[in-house]
């Protein structure tokens, strides 16, 4: 929290101040944000944090609140990956001046569309008595309803009063109720309360001296984790009534959310993050060598893997580990061309099962993995092995030293080293290279039947490809063997559990949480047959998920008060909306 405050500057300071000081959300739950005492070591939990909405979350909230026809018309700032997840990075980023301009553009665009004459009757709950004048009652009703969904909690009295006043001011100046409402709504959309997910805490009445997330924050954590979207009305109602704090109430909501089709979106969001699919945005292949790989192929490659994962883990509720061995997937015509298999449906996706001895088995052999972890014009067993260890086993592979001579591995036309195995062997004779390559190449070489875009091949430069390899003592002969080794590797499931937990809480697990994840969650995951939805359930119904360790040091109250006053002043003057 303190880190966020320091990085984000005044813009975020306003939100932090609100998070720390404002009884946002009102009612009986809000009064004890400052109630903190030391926790015992046996009670797992972590700090509440503030996270910037991801692009997908922003888009989803706008679509949920105003409909999917609303266009944004701006660009999002890049997310930052920390500890393997953008979700963790989202708690460590602020908004730059340029980024704020873009948020402002989008906010104005959205507000203009919502109040547009064509949409207002559908999207707004009331109409003013006089469209050319202010109407505080109608503005209050509108902004209260919309604000509850945008801020993921009811607006405080001060907040709603400020927004209504802003709408009235605009209506008077512009002689239009809707223009005033548009300005006020735009301000709401660019406010930190919307752009950042504040996590507000309160005293935990069931554990003396402990704190927990308040009801609205719990609702938001649940919905962003399971649905990658803001909480819906039902979830906000459960927060408002306090039902979400009861085991029965929480279970009811979790049951509902896990049964919802939106669980697939949440699952997709997690695996998109874990598998680093954001990197497809800058992935390029040498079109002279691999013309099949275009922008569409890159998009469909991601979609193939996500469909495979969602079908396998959610629809089929199957063992997570089998993702590394399954031959069942979904294809388009274009992907069929890359894999060189028939897909006779002209558009869209068809379920497909690769033949048993066809080479492809598991998501490691899909275009998304082998293409993402290859160079533009040549494969890289090293990058593939590194990704396998870092992304799927949560291990850290050291970066290469700065003075490595890559000449041998880059010369794919060297007649003395026709295959990449030969080139890597020659390269790794250097002592400084050998150590790292030993932990990446043996499994990456097993994927050499797949060229840099995922096309199947059996030779390189006319020389037969040797796909034998090893993963932590398990030897295999090909990609299918590698998939089986990953399936059986204890790090595979352990990594997933840790990643899911970090993703859910938006930060690296604290030592107490790590201990709980290892001794409890990983064990339960195995007992549950490695079912991902059940893992989600275990997390969100645990005490640990919502338990909060307060910040070790609070920002000085007088400093916060000063920042808050300054921020409020800027809001009032319109310099900061």
């Amino acid at each position, binding site marked *: 929290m303190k880190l966020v405050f320091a990085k984000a500057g005044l813009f975020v300071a306003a939100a932090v101040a609100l998070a720390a000081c404002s009884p946002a959300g009102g009612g009986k739950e809000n009064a004890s944000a400052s109630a903190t005492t030391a926790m015992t070591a046996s009670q797992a939990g972590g700090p509440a944090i503030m996270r910037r909405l991801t692009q997908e979350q922003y888009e989803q909230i706008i679509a949920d609140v105003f409909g999917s026809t609303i266009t944004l018309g701006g660009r999002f700032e890049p997310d930052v990956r920390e500890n393997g997840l953008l979700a963790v990075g989202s708690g460590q980023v602020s908004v730059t001046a340029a980024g704020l301009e873009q948020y402002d553009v989008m906010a104005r665009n959205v507000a203009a569309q919502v109040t547009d004459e064509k949409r207002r009757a559908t999207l707004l709950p009331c109409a003013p008595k006089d469209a050319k004048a202010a109407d505080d009652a109608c503005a209050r009703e509108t902004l209260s309803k919309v604000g509850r969904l945008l801020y993921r909690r009811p607006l405080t009295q001060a907040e709603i009063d400020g927004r209504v006043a802003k709408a009235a001011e605009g209506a008077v100046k512009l002689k239009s109720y809707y223009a005033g409402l548009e300005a006020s709504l735009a301000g709401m959309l660019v406010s930190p309360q919307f752009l950042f997910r504040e996590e507000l805490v309160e005293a935990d009445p069931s554990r003396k001296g402990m704190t927990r997330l308040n009801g609205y924050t719990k609702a938001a954590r649940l919905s962003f984790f399971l649905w990658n979207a803001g909480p819906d009305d039902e979830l906000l109602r459960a927060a408002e009534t306090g039902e979400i704090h009861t085991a029965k109430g929480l279970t009811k909501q979790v049951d509902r959310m896990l049964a919802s089709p939106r669980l697939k979106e949440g699952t997709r969001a997690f695996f998109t993050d874990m598998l680093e699919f954001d990197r497809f945005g800058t992935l390029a*292949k040498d*079109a*002279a060598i*691999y*013309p*099949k*790989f*275009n922008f*569409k192929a890159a998009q469909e490659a991601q979609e193939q893997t996500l469909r495979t994962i969602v079908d396998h883990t959610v629809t089929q509720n199957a063992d997570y580990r089998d993702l590394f061995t399954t031959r*069942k997937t979904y294809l388009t*015509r*274009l992907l*069929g*061309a*890359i894999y*060189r*298999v*028939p*897909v*006779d449906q*002209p558009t869209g996706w*068809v*379920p*497909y*099962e*690769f*033949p048993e001895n*066809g080479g492809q088995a598991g998501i490691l052999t899909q275009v998304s993995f082998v293409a993402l972890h290859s160079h533009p014009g040549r494969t890289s067993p090293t990058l593939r092995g590194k990704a396998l260890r870092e992304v799927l086993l949560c291990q850290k592979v050291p970066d290469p030293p700065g003075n490595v001579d890559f000449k041998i591995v880059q010369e794919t036309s060297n007649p003395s080293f026709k295959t990449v195995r030969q080139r890597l062997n020659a390269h790794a004779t250097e002592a400084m290279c050998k150590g790292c390559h030993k932990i990446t190449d043996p499994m990456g070489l097993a994927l050499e039947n797949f060229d840099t875009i995922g096309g*199947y*091949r*059996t030779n390189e430069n006319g020389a037969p490809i040797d796909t034998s390899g090893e993963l932590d003592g398990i030897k295999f002969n090909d990609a299918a063997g590698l998939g089986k080794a990953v399936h059986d590797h204890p790090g595979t499931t352990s990594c997933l559990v840790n990643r899911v937990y970090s993703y859910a809480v938006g930060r690296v697990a604290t030592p107490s949480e790590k201990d709980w994840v290892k001794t409890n969650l990983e064990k339960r995951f195995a007992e549950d047959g490695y079912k991902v939805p059940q893992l989600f359930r275990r997390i969100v119904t645990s005490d640990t998920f919502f338990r909060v360790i307060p910040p070790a040091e609070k920002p000085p109250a007088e400093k916060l008060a000063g920042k808050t006053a300054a921020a409020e002043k800027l809001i009032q003057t319109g310099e900061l909306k």
Partner: protein
Amino acid sequence: MFLSRHFVMTTVGAAALLSAGAASAETRGYVVDWFHVATAFTEANCPKGLNPLSDDFYKHELKRLGYANSDVERLMKDFPNGEYIPITTNRGRVDGKPVNIYANPWTAPDPMLMNVKGTAAYGFNLDGRSGANDFVDPETKERGVDNQMFRAVGCINNFAVNPPNQPIYPFAQWDLTRDSSPAWLIQISGIDDALNDDDVTVTLDKSVDVIQRDANGNAVADMTMRVDPNSRSHTVVKAKIKDGMLVSEKFNMQFESDPMLMPMFDFKNSKLRFKLKDDGGLEGVLGGYHAWWPIYWSYAQGGWIVEHSAGLNIPGIYYALKKMADADPDPKSGENRAISTAWRITAVPSILVGTAEPQTAQK
């Protein structure tokens, strides 16, 4: 239900598998990537250079219509836009009244385009004779090549290229239609030896699918294409492969196409040859007699847009094709209605489904 590769293959090839017995011959499928007039530019082919471009011949036409030099300059000063457009578009005359020249090319005098004078042209000896009007194919060295269409248009700037470069307007015609027009498919079956085989079968079909583009704008290779079950574009012909070059027997062929290009190709006494390339694709030539009026119309239908931008003197092409036509004489007038032609074809591997033969992509 998950479809396995085996399931799909078995389905599409069931009939063939049931009847093929112990057949071990290979069948290869392709989708046509590019199709356009086969051009062979040499200085000897056009010893007086190339025909003038549109800004030049429009001035000439305006003067022919009686405009003074100063008027011509004024009308043409904003070329390619300008006041000249309705005048040159309607430069035909019927009973002294202007008519659209593209629909009525005979209503203006022959502008006498310079035609090919040399001996190099792609194609085949279609009539079995070798005469003064025939060419030598630069690729196969075959003599007596009949390709009067190339003789007619070969010295127009747009066509003055050699492969792998493509003549610009025919390239554009094909390129503009291929994203919306069903693809053309080629199947070569009965391949026992891809280098030398004296009995293979070439089947030409239209697809019900359009191609998808790769990163270079060409057709994506190895994509599944469904064969149109309608027989109107279905042609089967025997061929031989010698030293990796497939040459077909003579055949007649109708092929439905895009109106932007030609609504229906209708080749008579045709031949095909393809080089089976190392990258799995095909490159070759289709030669045959074709009615010349549809060829003319494939250019003329674009009117002023095509004439001025591609530099094609449309009535000039009309007269050239008419004069060079060398087949199918009209019983009454004696004028030839067909012209010998040659077209360059490149194709990439494709998985064809809905055929009588099981298909495999080439690894």
